[in-house]
């Protein structure tokens, strides 16, 4: 009985254990890893993946997936950059347009998934290829740059904390508020658990699912433009590539279930994003080969998904016993 209890505690808190384990391992292997400066650097690096992953969390809790976030990063930064270059658009409006582009692609995803009842994987695969294609068409696959005076805005610090970390904190706080304190946030969990039951309970399931995809698009745009600014405002054709993998991985590492209904932005997804970046940075410190880093990251993520599937079947087994006969003592 005790064994089962400990196992449950472990299964329910995998992200924390995993994060601590990785942190400890790297701290022992490379003493420099523990310095404050380095930790801030890691957190700054977390901001980009973290913000994308926060949006992705909403979609994954509904039981869906969004592969288009990487392309959203590219397209939503590129359009305002082009507008500033060609028609001297003001900065606030450019930022609003950036978010609108993200929302629009989210809305397109939502339309096909919710209204046309198409599979999220395929719909977002199409928008992933399509929006990257559109972006390359718009800029003739040339590098576009934001003016330096704009990008300088983003490298400041408030009370010694780099701006990206503050952005990340704000985004996580907003998302946490939505998930915990608003009806639509709670309803996302309901439709992810069982959409038929949700419908019977009187929930407007279409509106709730659409909300998740749109907010995912908006956060992808936000995270994207932030990372572009960090890189000095340069947007080339590889912007956002592979971001969907990192974002999905962060959500899953954070304890969300790809079958829907389970997950949280805080601490879950935030920890997931930290784990990914700890791995990245730690492996660099160790002087590991670039390609080897990818292999290790992939293996760790595979391991996390494996544990998730163990957890799901274990919980299913418990549930199965719950609905049947009571055991005689």
């Amino acid at each position: 009985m005790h064994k089962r209890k400990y196992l449950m505690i472990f299964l329910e808190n995998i992200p924390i254990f995993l994060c601590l384990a990785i942190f400890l391992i790297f701290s022992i292997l490379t003493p420099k890893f523990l310095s404050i400066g380095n930790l801030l650097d890691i957190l700054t690096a977390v901001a980009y993946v973290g913000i994308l992953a926060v949006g992705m969390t909403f979609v994954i809790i509904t039981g869906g997936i969004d592969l288009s976030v990487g392309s959203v990063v590219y397209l939503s930064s590129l359009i305002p950059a082009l507008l500033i270059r060609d028609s001297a658009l003001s900065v606030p409006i450019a930022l609003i347009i950036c978010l609108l582009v993200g929302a629009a692609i989210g809305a397109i995803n939502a339309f096909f998934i919710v209204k046309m009842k198409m599979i999220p994987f395929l719909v977002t695969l199409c928008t992933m290829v399509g929006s990257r294609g559109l972006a390359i068409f718009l800029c003739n696959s040339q590098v576009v740059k934001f003016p330096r005076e704009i990008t300088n805005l983003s490298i400041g610090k408030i009370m010694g904390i780099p701006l990206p970390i503050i952005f990340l904190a704000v985004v996580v706080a907003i998302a946490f508020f939505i998930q915990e304190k608003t009806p639509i946030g709670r309803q996302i969990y309901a439709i992810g658990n069982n959409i038929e039951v949700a419908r019977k309970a009187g929930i407007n399931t279409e509106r709730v699912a659409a909300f998740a995809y749109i907010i995912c698009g908006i956060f992808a745009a936000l995270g994207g433009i932030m990372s572009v600014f960090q890189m000095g405002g340069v947007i080339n054709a590889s912007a956002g590539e592979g971001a969907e993998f990192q974002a999905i991985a962060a959500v899953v590492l954070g304890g969300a279930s790809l079958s829907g209904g389970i997950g949280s932005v805080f601490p879950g997804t935030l920890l997931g994003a930290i784990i990914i970046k700890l791995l990245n940075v730690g492996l660099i410190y160790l002087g590991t080969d670039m390609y080897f880093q990818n292999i290790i990251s992939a293996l760790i993520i595979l391991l996390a998904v494996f544990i998730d599937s163990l957890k799901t079947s274990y919980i299913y087994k418990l549930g199965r016993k719950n609905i049947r006969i009571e055991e005689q003592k």
Partner: protein
Amino acid sequence: MANIALEINDISKSFFGVYVITDISFKLEKGNILGLIGENGAGKSTLVNIVGGIHQVDKGNMKLFGKLYAPKTPRDALEKHISFVHQELNLFPNLSIADNIFIEKYPGGSVIKHSEMKKRTSEMLKWVDLDISPSTLIEKLSPGQRQLVEIVKCMRINPDIIIFDEPTTSLASKETERLFKLIKKLKSEGKTIIYISHILTDIKKITDDLVVLMDGKITDSGKTDDFSINRMIKSMLGRDIMGRKYPDKINKSDEEVVLKVENLSEPGIIRNINFELHKGEILGLFGLMGSGRTELTRVLFGIDPYKEGNIYIHGKKENKLSPEKSIKNKIGFVTENRNEEGLLLEGNVAENISLVSLPNYSSKILKFINTNKQKESINEIIERLKIKIGSTEKQLVRSLSGGNQQKIVIAKWLMNKPSIFFIDEPTRGIDVGVKYELYCILNKLADSGASILVVSSEIEELVGICDRILIMSKGEISSEFKNREFDNEMILTAAFKQKSML
């Protein structure tokens, strides 16, 4: 004139061209408890699903307190203060009690007022004597507690009419007593209640009025006080059409034991199961929902594991079962839910029929499929089972009627020439005419020496076709009836009594 809460006028509803209920009319008096009974598939759930806005009528109308009532969605029904406690629990196990109660409409509009939500939830939980925190997750609750939460949830909208669809299937007897007390309390508060149940003694105990459905029509109705249990059973079964529904038995059960089960247990699922299946026998397995009947067949076929006990197939002890091994042992398994577990709906007829027996038609070494031989067998079996289809290659299984789909599932297993056949709910969702044909098929199969285990929740069906019937209750086999000893009333009474006494 008494105050009428709900009036139902000539309602009909069909699914895919088959009428599930036809010309139903009745009136529901405010503050009364109406019992709705009938066999599985009689149309009870469809009827209340229409009232609850889940299905829409084809014909007829409803009036709610004298006003026309035509709900399009469950939300419409909720807005008209009609609440539904479903047969299967409709809760989100990943969310808290409070979330489940308020999921559709939280207190406080766009930002949830947690304190108010918790306070209201606590009050409602107190009303049903449930002393747990509102933030407890549903997955941590027992079935009985979940049922209470379900009832609390339906109270949120302050309903005028509450529908209970088989609320006691997952409850222990003490919890059932508690539920009845609650229902009486609701009645005393002036709520109108529709109560569906298989358990006739409960119906007798709790309802004021009664409507009996059979094959989608009302066969009897009136004050519950005027009904004996016998009259209920007779009206449910329609005594006069008995006898013609089933073919004469031609199979003879042999002494030889083909399947022997000894002390089979899996904690929480089945307990101490013992029985023998003889050559050429049709053995019935009856049980109410949640009794473990389907679970037992899944264990026997090797889909689910078991902890203790022995299984002998053709006298040989089997240690590790798996579906693959069972197929090699010539065991067939027609599952309860053909759409999800029995058919490739998007596949054509030939693909579905040849699925199990494919390896039998492949050459020895290179495993190429001998398509001519296979086609011959497919055509032969289609003829034998009288499956009505256009083309074996072009017709998708999705487009067939329920009866023909079920025949295809059976054909799939027959192609492998089974000596043992498990068949779970052989006639669910199938018309009477095709049912007769299916019974003939099972009869002939047993006559040719196969042994058949038929699982069903329709007692009449088992009485009509079986040599012996086992009754399962709460994961155990509780009694056994031999051929000629049984009479459906006797078994029904036994099964119902059993359940209500527990």
